[in-house]
């Protein structure tokens, strides 16, 4: 049963890759998946809208699973964040379907992407938390707030590099070590206390 749902999702993704979001219909998805229209509606009672939303969410999650795989070898908090930002930046640029849909029909894609990134933020924060503990937090830093803040920043740089060249490992290293983590994990002086 779960296989059929998965097959419909993947078939729909193929259609989206070929024709874009707006032109993909339930009929297209059914034909591509070799199932009837009725079967598609059984799994996606909301019809086309639900199907498109679930396909975007599925590929979004797949993206972060690939990211998760890519940072498995990283041993430290710095390495995880640097590898993650660089991998995500490259993957987004090389994601042909994403780039094409962003050019032609961002309005269909973005509400779902925003909703899902709000959801994945907690996942990123949870993922970073053990690395924060392992590294040792600066005094006075709340672990939950720190991991949430870092997850927000990671997502921000992934979505828009701004002034940074995120293909350059030296720049990414400076971004992560000098800016993002400076207040979180290192604190030669106790936070908020006068130096002595």
């Amino acid at each position, binding site marked *: 049963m779960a296989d059929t749902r998965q097959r419909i999702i993947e078939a729909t993704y193929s259609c989206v890759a070929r024709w874009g979001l707006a032109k993909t219909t339930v009929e297209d998805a059914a034909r591509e998946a070799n199932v009837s229209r009725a079967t598609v509606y059984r799994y996606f009672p909301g019809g086309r809208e639900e199907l498109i939303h679930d396909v975007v969410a599925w590929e979004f999650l797949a993206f972060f699973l690939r990211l998760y795989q890519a940072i498995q070898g990283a041993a430290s908090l710095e390495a995880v964040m640097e590898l993650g930002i660089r991998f995500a930046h490259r993957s987004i640029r090389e994601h042909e379907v994403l780039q094409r849909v962003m050019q032609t029909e961002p309005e269909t894609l973005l509400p779902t992407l925003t909703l899902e990134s709000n959801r994945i933020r907690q996942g990123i924060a949870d993922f970073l938390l053990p690395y924060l503990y392992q590294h040792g937090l600066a005094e006075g830093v709340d672990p939950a707030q720190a991991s949430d803040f870092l997850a927000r920043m990671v997502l921000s740089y992934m979505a828009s590099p701004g002034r940074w060249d995120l293909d350059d490992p030296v720049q990414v290293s400076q971004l992560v070590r*000098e800016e993002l983590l400076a207040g979180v994990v290192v604190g030669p002086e106790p936070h908020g206390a006068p*130096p002595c």
Partner: protein
Amino acid sequence: MSGQPARLRAVPSGAGVSSSSVPVVDRTPTHRVRIVDATLACMAHRGTTKTTVDDIARQAGISRATVYRVFPGGKVEILAAVVDTEMARLFSALGVRMGTADRLADVLVNGIVEAVTRVTTHPALGYLVEHEPDVVLRHLAFDESNQLLATATRFVAPFLARWMDPEESARVAEWSTRIVLSYCINPSSETDLTDPVQARRLIETFVLPGIRALQAPDRTAPIAIAAFAAERRPDRPNHPSDITPVKGDQP
């Protein structure tokens, strides 16, 4: 405008003010203001898609023909004027709040609180986020977002010039803009950045140490964080004393 515009105020003699900067008597500016304000009012309860030029004309109390005379491009042109107006209002409020602060931490806290408060309580923007999110979100992702970051960075960076060099200012300005955008798009249940106390805590915990790190000696070379931490002495010469966390501001 060609011909001899009637002047509202006399040009001070010898001041060298060009006539183009002198307000001129013309009905158009009044209509323009009324149309922009009426559009904002319409957007706050109907959004952009459902707001028509007729709605705008009715709300402004002028005829449809007058609307098109002032904005020949119709709704698209009006909406562009509305966006420009609201961006200018946001930036001028930010300028006042940041420009009057005497300490770096205050510049950042005032700017972030003002920006998040204005964005999250803006009636028209609020309607759009709720009902037509794509209209707003397309400016907040990927290439469009890079443009927004660049615009905000160019505006904010000079307010930081008292405390850091232009490259550092730009980095910190962009960083602060990212914080504002993140908390506006995805509000946090833990951290409310419309609250100056919470904003200050966030800035002092996460941003000021990053600025201190930026200003650490030898920062241009990629450096190991351990060596770098040892170097980061709070009492180093030229250390801006005002970016030391202020205990009295903790709740």
